[in-house]
């Protein structure tokens, strides 16, 4: 049953990706990217990664779509059509794509218990987090406690992004604020 769902979802995602790349109407493309994100959120749920699915649904399908639409309302709804065939670009894309596929050949099988990711600290987190941290959601204990330093870095990235946008566009919001 899950396999059928996987196949249906993945084929939907491929269709959407091709449609987005061929579409000239950017408004529709932005909406389709939202649907794409939502489908990948369902994929994450099927893979039992509910925390990631939650983030994907909230950020990918929700806020990014709103921000893309906000950007489109400032620019234009139609993509400029480029008629020229660019052989060099095609070559670069093909080489990059085949290099990426070549890289995945070395990766361990999905769900392989001997994969390096299951050999390192994962066992320790699963065994000891109940005693050391005592919260049921191990994802939260890894994210906020064991790997708290990394999460601090992530928050700093978001902070920097916010500061960047405020610095670039901030004077406009100040002026309107005082009216």
């Amino acid at each position: 049953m899950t396999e059928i769902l996987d196949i249906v979802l993945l084929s939907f995602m491929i269709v959407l990706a091709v449609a987005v790349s061929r579409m000239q109407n950017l408004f529709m493309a932005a909406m389709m990217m939202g649907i794409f994100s939502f489908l990948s959120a369902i994929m994450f749920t099927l893979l039992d990664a509910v925390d990631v699915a939650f983030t994907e649904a909230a950020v990918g399908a929700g806020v990014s779509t709103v921000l893309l639409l906000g950007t489109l309302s400032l620019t234009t709804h139609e993509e400029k059509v480029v008629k020229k065939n660019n052989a060099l670009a095609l070559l670069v894309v093909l080489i990059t794509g085949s290099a990426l596929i070549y890289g995945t050949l070395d990766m361990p099988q999905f769900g392989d218990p001997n994969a390096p990711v299951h050999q390192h600290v994962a066992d320790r987190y699963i065994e000891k987090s109940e005693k050391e941290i005592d919260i049921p959601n191990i994802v939260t204990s890894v994210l906020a406690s064991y790997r708290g330093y990394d999460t601090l870095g992530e928050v700093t990235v978001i902070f920097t992004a916010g500061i960047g946008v405020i610095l670039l566009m901030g004077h406009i919001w100040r002026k309107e604020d005082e009216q």
Partner: protein
Amino acid sequence: MRHQGIPRVVSKWLIAPILLFALYVQFHGDFGPGGGFQAGVIFAAAVVLYALIFGLQAAKQIVKPRIVETLVALGVLLYAGTGLVSLFLGYNFLDYTALDPDNAPHGQHLGIFLVELGVGITVAAVMIAIFFSFAGRRRLR
């Protein structure tokens, strides 16, 4: 969308539950999926919805841009501050055992609560700030 009846009525019903759900995701992250990051985004989504339906000016009167700017930094400060407290209590940076050395899991609970709150505040404030900046710009033509 200011003059459309159905979105106005529906959003009035929806915004309060969305805010409540954001708080639930924030404080229930220890037991189920979710945490500060998702909660912040959901909280910002409620503000974005309000701004889309009732206009940017109305949203800015409720969520003051000056406060949003402060909150952007406050979340990171809360996070890093928790780490500094444990550092000054003689433990490693972000080792929450320092917050309650006699009962380590309790200290961990408190530490995780504080840093998740910091994440939630920064994420919500940054999302709102980015939306306000984009929506506040007029079309350049």
